[in-house]
């Protein structure tokens, strides 16, 4: 049996969150690819079509949750990979808060974009 390698310390809260978001992302990423490449095709994209989907509260909520979980999973993964690479001390703190800031910017811009499609927060 091969040895198991991981960038994460087993058992912690972030370890659990990384796995919970992974399970969620498995389903939603597959849905995202399927809907936007196989049901609708890449060369058929239009603002009105994207807007029509995003005006539905269920789709909007799913996509915002998708953005939040993907951002956490990705950025937490990068942070753990760097820590595993030997990142310590001040550099570790600087990288950590840089990644937090990048995540906030990404979430802010992503939600602004979703709201542009939905014409604001969809109420129905």
């Amino acid at each position, binding site marked *: *049996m*091969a*040895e*198991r*390698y*991981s*960038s994460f310390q*087993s058992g912690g809260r972030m370890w659990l969150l990384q*796995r919970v978001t*992974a*399970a969620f*992302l*498995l389903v939603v*990423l*597959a849905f995202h*690819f399927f809907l936007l*490449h*196989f049901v609708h*095709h*890449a*060369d058929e*994209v*239009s*603002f*009105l079509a*994207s807007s029509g989907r995003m005006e539905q509260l269920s789709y909007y909520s799913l996509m915002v949750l998708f*953005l939040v979980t*993907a*951002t956490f999973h*990705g*950025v937490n*993964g*990068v942070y753990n*990979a760097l820590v*595993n*690479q*030997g990142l310590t001390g001040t550099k570790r703190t600087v990288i950590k808060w840089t990644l937090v800031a*990048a995540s906030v910017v*990404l979430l802010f*811009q*992503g939600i*602004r*974009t979703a709201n*542009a*499609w939905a*014409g604001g927060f969809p109420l129905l």
Partner: protein
Amino acid sequence: MSQSYNRGLIEDFSRWREFEAGMWAWIFHKFTGWVLIGYLFTHIAVLSTAIPAAGASEAAMMAGNDVYTQTIVSLEGLLLVRLLEVGLLAVAVFHMLNGTRLLLVDLGVGLDAQDKSFYASLLLTGAITVASVPTFIAGAF
């Protein structure tokens, strides 16, 4: 008494000939993870063209003359972008399949078949990617 071994830095890639399946799975998972988070930032940047597009007139939107539609249609018209999308699919599918394998390992499922399940992830990634090429390339020519 337990004995510990100094294996050196795990990511000493000069030792790549010594790597076993589990190490390759770990490296591929990490590489695909870096690509996916990089893509997420790029994806949101491109989709952000929807913000100025929301201010376009209804006639412009109906005609597809808003900046969002024009940006996406222009990008999707490039064969290179279509090929990169196939690459993105391959990267995402591997990360998902190998991630499923890791979740199962964490749950104690399939501990004795970790090598086999890694090879299965690779094969399935290849099969899904190849099968998806016609859909991803459609309309590019």
